């Protein structure tokens, strides 16, 4: 294992993050505050409690997940796409490193950034609503696993993308709709029965459900199923990345 290489990639990626720390910190704070003003105060005041939790508090897990997923994807996809775009990828290909080391460096950094933003949003939320976290360890576990699995997914997108448009395409057309329709801002039980069934095909539902359970003990689907879903998604992404490096798909001709 080339630990120095992992560390070199990780710190190199993180330094980009630290250069824009203020921006990285301020933008999630502002966007979260806006959500609370709109959904929590303006609209939320007209909505009854959802399963015994105030609407403002109910949306916190979904809000965190929304940001964590999109941040993990965009950080990881950009992280690996950028060297491809400017040509510095040659160095990764000619260095004595294997796929796991490259992934640990890039995905590790992207997941760290997403985790940081998730925690910032959690902290901001606490300023607006009364938060209870019934299962803090599970909460952290879910958040970390989501950061990692979506960073892996983003890494795949970054390798797949041939231009900046494609880089934005998957997050915009697939991930954002899945997250919005995945129960970020509502409970699945609020939907008509047919749509409840359809929703169960959305993998994001399992993540948000499990994450919300760790806060309020409320879950749309069994918690074990949530864990299984995220483990499966992580394994699938790792498998795809292993295949990418083995065949050199879109990186090594």
């Amino acid at each position: 294992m080339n630990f120095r290489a992992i560390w070199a990639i990780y710190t190199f990626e993180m330094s980009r993050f630290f250069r824009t720390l203020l921006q990285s910190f301020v933008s999630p704070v502002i966007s979260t505050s806006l959500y609370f003003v709109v959904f929590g105060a303006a609209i939320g005041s007209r909505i009854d409690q959802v399963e015994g939790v105030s609407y403002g508090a109910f949306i916190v897990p979904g809000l965190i997940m929304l940001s964590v997923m999109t941040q993990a994807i965009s950080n990881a996809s950009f992280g690996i796409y950028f060297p491809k775009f400017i040509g510095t990828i040659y160095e990764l290909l000619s260095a004595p490193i294997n796929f796991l080391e490259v992934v640990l460096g890039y995905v590790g950094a992207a997941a760290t950034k997403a985790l940081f933003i998730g925690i910032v949003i959690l902290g901001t939320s606490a300023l607006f609503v009364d938060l209870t976290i019934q299962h803090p360890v599970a909460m952290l576990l879910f958040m970390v696993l989501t950061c990692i699995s979506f960073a892996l997914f983003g890494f795949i997108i970054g390798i797949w993308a041939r231009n900046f448009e494609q880089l934005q395409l998957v997050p915009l057309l697939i991930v954002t709709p899945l997250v919005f329709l995945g129960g970020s801002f509502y409970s699945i039980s609020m939907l008509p029965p047919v749509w409840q069934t359809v929703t169960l095909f959305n993998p994001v539902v399992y993540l948000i459900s499990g994450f919300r359970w760790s806060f309020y003990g409320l879950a749309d689907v069994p918690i074990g199923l949530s864990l299984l879903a995220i483990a499966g998604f992580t394994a699938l992404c790792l498998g795809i990345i292993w295949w990418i490096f083995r065949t050199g798909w879109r990186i090594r001709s």
Partner: protein
Amino acid sequence: MTQMAPIVRIKGLEKAYDTGFQALKGVDLDIEEGELLALLGPNGAGKTTLISAVCSLTIPTGGTVTVGGHDVVRDYRAARDLIGLVPQEINLEPFEKVMNTVRFSRGLFGKRRDDAYLERILRQLSLWDKRDAKIMELSGGMKRRVLIAKALSHEPRVLFLDEPTAGVDVELRKEMWDTVRMLKADGVTIILTTHYIEEAEAMADRVGVINKGEMLLVEAKSRLMERMGQKHLTIELHEPIQTIPDSLSDFDLTLLEDGRALVFAYDTRQERTGITKLLTELQAAGIVLRDLQTTQSSLEDIFVGLVQEDAA
């Protein structure tokens, strides 16, 4: 004294693309430790593909490459550890600082951080004053030297330079040549690609000529330059002649078929080319000249010549 094993050994290396294009057609090449080998060939000859296959940027479809005895595919860590690569394009992150990017390269190769060593490289490449400058603030020549510094950061034994002077003005080219000579003096084995004969001439110990994915020949520079130094003087005559006068038999002359022109082949690197003597003799023989014209074999001509020799 026994011959040391070559540091790089390329055997039957092939690269075919999905499109069916065969970029390398079974290349064999041994590179000795400490030498400077220039790979000479026109654009599209397969120079970059060859380097890419050795440096793991591309996956060969046949043959083997070993570096320091390590197979570049099976034993990639040990092999890549010995190789430094300077790409043809200026592939650098524009917002990064010089020292950071060089330090990153060293880390990527799994080497312990050693700022004293990196300082020595940067000083040697006249980049030390720019260590905290962002890449985008540097001139073109400096950026190329940053690429070299990155390639040297992990103390490789073999350095590949892919067209180090492509698209570079004359002054920078000379500067680059000095840099390469300095690296060679440090004992690094260097393989560089170029399509300039003068570049190979200025630096190489040996020259490999590659065209259409085939290694046409690899030989000591001095021998190759002899072949390439040939020039032709065409002498158009006022009146056609039937035979070359005996007094001119010492010269390498050919009479063109209609007898209206003589072609004199000579070597530009000789102390005396014999032109003055030839012209004097011509006058003595009473031959009246109409026009003179000299042509030098272009690289293309030489390639054609080599291919024909190959076939013969």
